[in-house]
């Protein structure tokens, strides 16, 4: 998947509260579909549908443990999404820190004028 498509899939997957709750649960450890469905008052097929979206985004993987097929959290796409925005943020922040300094100078100037 290209970065843009990967980010789209990640952000889409995160846009739903049920899917975010599933990720929250998986952050505590792997779980089966029925275990994941239990707290949601949702049918297993409904949960499976959400899981498909999460799997497509690479946020959830399916393990193999005998008869069980536990779901696991995969954090790499989250890190990619965070870094994508974080880099952009840092470029702005670099400028804004220079603006902080400039504003301080301007305020000193204005105060000097008032005092003078």
């Amino acid at each position, binding site marked *: 998947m290209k970065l843009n498509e990967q980010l789209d899939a990640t952000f889409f997957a995160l846009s739903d509260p049920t899917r975010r709750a599933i990720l929250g649960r998986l952050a505590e450890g792997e779980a089966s579909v029925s275990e994941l469905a239990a707290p949601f008052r949702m049918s297993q097929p409904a949960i499976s549908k959400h899981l498909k979206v999460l799997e497509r985004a690479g946020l959830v993987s399916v393990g193999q443990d005998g008869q069980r097929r536990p779901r696991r959290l995969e954090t790499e796409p989250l890190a990619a999404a965070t870094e994508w925005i974080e880099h952009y943020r840092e470029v702005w922040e670099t400028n804004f820190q*220079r603006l902080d300094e400039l504003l301080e100078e301007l305020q000193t100037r204005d105060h000097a004028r008032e005092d003078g």
Partner: protein
Amino acid sequence: MQQQGAQVSMPNDREVEVTRTFRAPRTLVYEAYTKPELVQQWLLGPPGWTMPVCEMDVRVGGRFRWRWRSEEDGKEFGFEGEYLDVQPATLLRNTESFDSGDIGGSMGEKPAMVTVRFHERNGTTTLTTLIEYASKQDRDAAVSTGMTDGMESSYKLLDDVLAERPVQRKPI
């Protein structure tokens, strides 16, 4: 008061919003934002870039032209646009087009729409910049700008996007 760093959010598919608080009254923040000789002192982006061109005719229908130059290799690029709404110390709205100059890359054919709001509370000014791109693709290209360097990336994903669409640093 503890100062917070810039915050970035994406209200929808085509927009990006950047919010930052400054310990100064909004009249002063507005001044630093609209006087070319002041803008040139801070709107520089990453280290190694200077801003040799900063022309701003801040009135409705007036235009601005910003151009940066790399001290390392002399390459240039810029932004330009037209002011659509000017409310001193309160709001600026302008179009913004990317001029890729020597560095290549694209942020789309159609200009982005930029709205800057200045809101003061207890002597502290919150600056909110909303940039609305013509498409989601344009926005993602703009936000991805600068990921080509300055970052030791192990992401193969990143190589993919660079191969697909060359993008460059945007210093604001």
